């Protein structure tokens, strides 16, 4: 053990701003009614059990993992839909890049249909679209992948609720307490502001943090649009006698 006390404030993650996140019970999103804990969460500082987390090497990444247009191709054809590049930087709250972290993503096809056994929407499956991929961030915290724009789709919540086009993201960071799942929306989509899941987030500025921006500079001419979506994970506190720990 180091001579420095193992825990105090140093290296701790900033407390989560729970008012920035959706609360557990959001009546507009009915599935939360029976799944939201009623008791208050027990707030505690982190130990090694929360400040460490799994790491994944580039060895787990297959060549087409970041190409949803081709990674489920059955007959050599590409997925149908509006082609686009999605990219962005994973940062922590201190605006430092989160390097070498696994980002997973999944989405519906261009018609708004998921390749899932519980899916009930009438829109057609695309035989050449699976809908999932993954990437590991580079030394500056960037990830990128190629896909097609997912369609909006109806879902059983209100009598006629539709989800705006979105892509699901799972991000690990370097600590188990940084683990985050979120969704990316598309700039200019009016359906975001009618969506019970996006609107479970109380602060409009927080919803806007999940809206990817059209980026004309990173398009591939005559091929694919580009959207930029940055993701922020919890950051670590510094110490008075800072030792520049990894990730701090």
């Amino acid at each position: 053990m180091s001579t420095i006390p193992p825990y105090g404030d140093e290296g701790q993650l900033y407390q989560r701003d729970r008012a920035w996140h959706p609360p557990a019970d959001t009546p507009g999103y009915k599935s939360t009614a029976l799944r939201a804990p009623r008791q208050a969460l027990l707030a505690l500082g982190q130990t090694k059990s929360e400040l460490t987390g799994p790491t994944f090497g580039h060895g787990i990444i297959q060549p087409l993992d970041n190409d949803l247009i081709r990674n489920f191709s059955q007959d050599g054809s590409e997925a149908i839909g509006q082609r686009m590049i999605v990219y962005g930087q994973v940062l922590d709250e201190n605006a430092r890049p989160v390097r070498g972290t696994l980002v997973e993503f999944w989405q519906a096809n261009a018609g708004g249909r998921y390749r899932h056994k519980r899916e009930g929407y009438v829109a057609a499956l695309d035989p050449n679209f699976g809908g999932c991929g993954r990437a590991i961030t580079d030394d500056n915290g960037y990830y990128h992948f190629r896909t097609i724009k997912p369609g909006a789709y109806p879902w059983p919540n209100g009598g006629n609720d539709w989800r705006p086009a979105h892509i699901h993201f799972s991000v690990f960071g370097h600590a188990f307490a940084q683990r985050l799942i979120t969704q990316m929306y598309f700039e200019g989509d009016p359906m975001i502001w009618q969506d019970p899941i996006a609107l479970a987030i109380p602060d409009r500025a927080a919803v806007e943090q999940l809206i990817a921006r059209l980026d004309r500079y990173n398009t591939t001419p005559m091929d694919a649009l580009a959207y930029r979506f940055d993701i922020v994970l919890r950051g670590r506190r510094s110490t008075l006698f800072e030792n520049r720990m990894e990730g701090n």
Partner: protein
Amino acid sequence: MLNRLPPLKESPSQTAGPYVHIGMTPSLEGIGGPNQPDLGSGPIVAGDGPRITIAATIHDGSGAPLGDAVVELWQADSDGVHRQGWGRAACDGAGAFAFDTVKPGRVIGPDGRPMAPHVSLWIVARGINMGLQTRLYFDDEPAANADDPVLGRIMDPRRRQTLIAIRSEVDGRPRYDLAIRLQGEGETVFFDF
């Protein structure tokens, strides 16, 4: 330096949704492709201790099983050091999931003393706006559990029991069972770490 207000806000959480398996356990949906087996499936590598099974169920506030949840586990090795003791499992139709792992050793707690052996769990699903953080402890560690600083912060001792898995033996192998309840009677203690 003193901490300034951090310049960025954490990205707000959103539910993993009902189709979480596409992204996190894709083989269950027939889209594992070249990435089979799924990440985090299979036995957890966590040191040389005897193998155990951790088995749990998740139920909602009406007592219905969560057939659609995905759970991740993170734990120390048998020597109490966190290395790669991570796994991921999808619940079955009965809301049950299991991990093949080793019993973790003791990890230093917030007061510098060792905590009782435990694993960290993180639960995501449709209807869960933000992944739920909890822990699983072992009922054959009564002395360590009685001294554990995290369990000790749970004021109602009856609620401590919601985190303590019950040991049995199946085919000569230890198995620890825990019933996780998201809401209502017997509600599991969830943390804001």
